[in-house]
């Protein structure tokens, strides 16, 4: 049996795929993450609120998802000891809006900085586009992602590594003119997406309910979809066709899992992390720092595809009917989510009432609490869970379950994890590389 090692670069951090080959096809794939920073240990023994400073630094591309998961875990801890904490609508809206900015940024960056250049690599004549620091559209995309972050930074102070949340709400106190300014930035990003990415207005795009609408046009997404179809990407990269999302995202209001298209209620208490195959599994020979998240011992895909399958998005459901959970469906879902998030952000900006309080009396909260709490956030790459355990105000234990350990963990040859299953059976390293990247890899989150 032949074994090859492929180092996958140009992702958030770095990963190694160890591929086993049989009859010129990949028979098994080990996914290795070799950089570990011990963030959970760094958090220990610190005052609880210090976590709001430390967890954003887990990851430079989703720092605000982490700070939100942390504040939710802290608030849950208070609720668990009987403290009432009801956030104002304004605080909830601002938290979501700032998160949306981060997700839109992430998806634009992923598509333009990673996916398009990969397609370009496959066929330079067919696919002319998006060379970094060179092509017009690359600069436009860079401007769009910086601009959407301006919208967020009006409320978060900065991105990345803002710490704009506090127990009971948000720290900012915006003016009407701040809201107007945010709307202007949003409009600018919307225009870029309409002119370049989608080739039609966001409203029109959101009405499309068939993948065939995407193939004939001249927009960048249309061209990418047509090209991927030509390459047969509608047939590769399929995993278990099993999805999970824990809610608080437009269209997914409660924890739900989907087996193909059928939906079932779920509960975060059944989520666990397996140490199997990792260096943390004492006594056994591990090969990665990544743990694997499972729901009742089964692997589930998280991320935009999971969210859109669960929220019954008509275009993604159509794409799924034709191509199931192939790489093309996964990619379209992530690009589609940009439009949904833009629309949702517009609604949020329209509805924020600045006269409401930003935060509810957090100063009188007892600081030296002994409690436990769980925070769950839908981050760009999927469900992010923080579990905190505090003794007299000091962190005793902090558990971070990032989206990528759902998708990028390791199972066994009999029961591979999500990305492993999508890679097994492929006949080239290039395809394995592309399928792997379709999950939007983030190694810094995966191993922390």
């Amino acid at each position: 049996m032949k074994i090859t090692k492929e180092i996958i670069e140009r992702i958030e951090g770095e990963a190694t795929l160890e591929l086993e080959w049989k009859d010129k096809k990949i028979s098994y794939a080990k996914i290795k993450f070799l950089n570990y920073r011990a963030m959970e240990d760094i958090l220990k023994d610190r005052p609880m609120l210090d976590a709001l400073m430390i967890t954003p630094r887990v990851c430079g591309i989703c720092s605000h998802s982490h700070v939100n998961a942390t504040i939710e875990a802290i608030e849950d801890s208070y609720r668990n000891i009987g403290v009432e904490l009801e956030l104002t609508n304004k605080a909830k809206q601002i938290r979501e809006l700032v998160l949306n900015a981060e997700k839109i940024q992430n998806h634009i960056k992923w598509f333009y900085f990673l996916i398009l250049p990969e397609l370009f690599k496959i066929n330079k004549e067919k696919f002319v586009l998006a060379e970094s620091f060179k092509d017009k559209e690359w600069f436009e995309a860079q401007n769009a992602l910086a601009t959407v972050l301006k919208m967020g930074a009006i409320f978060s102070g900065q991105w990345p590594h803002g710490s704009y949340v506090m127990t009971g709400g948000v720290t900012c106190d915006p003016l009407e003119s701040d809201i107007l300014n945010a709307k202007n930035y949003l409009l600018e990003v919307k225009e870029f997406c309409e002119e370049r990415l989608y080739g039609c207005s966001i409203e029109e795009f959101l009405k499309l309910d068939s993948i065939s609408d995407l193939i004939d046009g001249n927009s960048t997404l249309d061209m990418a979809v047509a090209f991927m179809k030509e390459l047969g990407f509608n047939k590769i990269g399929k995993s278990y066709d099993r999805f999970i999302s824990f809610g608080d995202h437009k269209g997914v209001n409660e924890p739900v899992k989907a087996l193909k298209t059928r939906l079932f209620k779920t509960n975060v208490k059944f989520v666990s992390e397996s140490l199997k195959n990792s260096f943390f599994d004492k006594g056994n020979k591990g090969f990665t720092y990544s743990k694997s998240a499972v729901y009742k011992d089964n692997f589930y895909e998280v991320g935009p595809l999971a969210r859109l399958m669960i929220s019954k998005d008509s275009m993604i459901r159509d794409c799924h009917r034709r191509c199931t959970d192939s790489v093309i469906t996964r990619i379209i879902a992530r690009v589609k989510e940009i439009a949904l998030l833009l629309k949702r952000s517009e609604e949020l900006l329209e509805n924020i009432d600045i006269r409401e309080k930003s935060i509810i009396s957090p100063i009188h909260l007892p600081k030296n609490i002994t409690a436990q709490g769980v925070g769950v956030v839908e981050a760009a790459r999927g469900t992010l869970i923080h579990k905190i355990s505090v003794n007299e105000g000091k962190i005793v234990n902090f558990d971070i379950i990032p989206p990528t350990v759902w998708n990028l963990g390791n199972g066994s040859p009999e029961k591979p994890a999500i990305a492993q299953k999508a890679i097994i059976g492929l006949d080239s390293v290039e395809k394995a590389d592309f399928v792997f990247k379709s999950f939007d890899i983030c190694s810094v989150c995966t191993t922390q």
Partner: protein
Amino acid sequence: MSDFHPKKTIVWIQGITCNGDSHSFFNYSGMKNFANNFKIIYHPLLITSYDLEAILANEDRYDYLIVEGSFTKVRDYVDRSGYSFEHLVENLSKRVDYIICAGTCASYGGIFRERDKINITGALFSGDEEGGYWNENKKVINIPGCPLHPRWLVDTLLILKEGKPLLLDEFFRPKEVFSYFVHHGCLRNEYFEWKIDTKGFGEKEGCLFYEQGCRGPMTHANCNKILWNEVSSKTRAGSPCLGCTEPDFPRENVYETKTRMSLPAVPYGVSKRAYYTITGVAKSFRIDRLERKLIGDEHEDY
């Protein structure tokens, strides 16, 4: 681009990192101008003409080595395409004119130094102590910040490229950025002058220095002069400065102001006697305007 004005070359590598400085750089608002002046030969998150292996194998000279993330010689702490961080640094640092430490981690060790304060450091410092990865290296320029502001990086690169004098302070930081304090330009300055505390978070009014742990008056950086993402800053968004550009970042108990005999620490370079005297005088007056909401009818029940 004419031959008389060639682009300067950049190789960007990472130690122990969260990628935050890269992502902050991607927010830079003058990216076309950047691209007219510089060519990124290698960056781990971008498609570049060379991969890491090719860069390490050739013998070309480059102008700037940008290092993001903490420095370490421990093999287990970092793996980059199968190479140790030490290998990357030893190979590349000799072939460049300047080594630019992008961010607090590369400058002082930063957040990841909390894991192992002996073996995880900055290039020339370990926290505020001299001696990091190197004891001496005249090529190093430190641009701390968690993350750094994209302008701090690109302005520095442009000043170097144009051959203008780049003045550095005792921490090898560009003086144009780090002679300022986060306090400068803070919209809460008047409350600071009259020692009026904010009434909790989520308010435009009041100063965050007395209760909420704000480090603005002792943190070197021009955040409130040039603003983040060109629109705001931590203190403008009601959040205390966490002192993320300083060698002692991350401090403990950051959302609380440490006091001695109920007096906070004093702003950088101000004597205790001067500060506490002026505080006593300021506090003895009650300024009605500053006790009221900035805009009257907000937050009232309706």
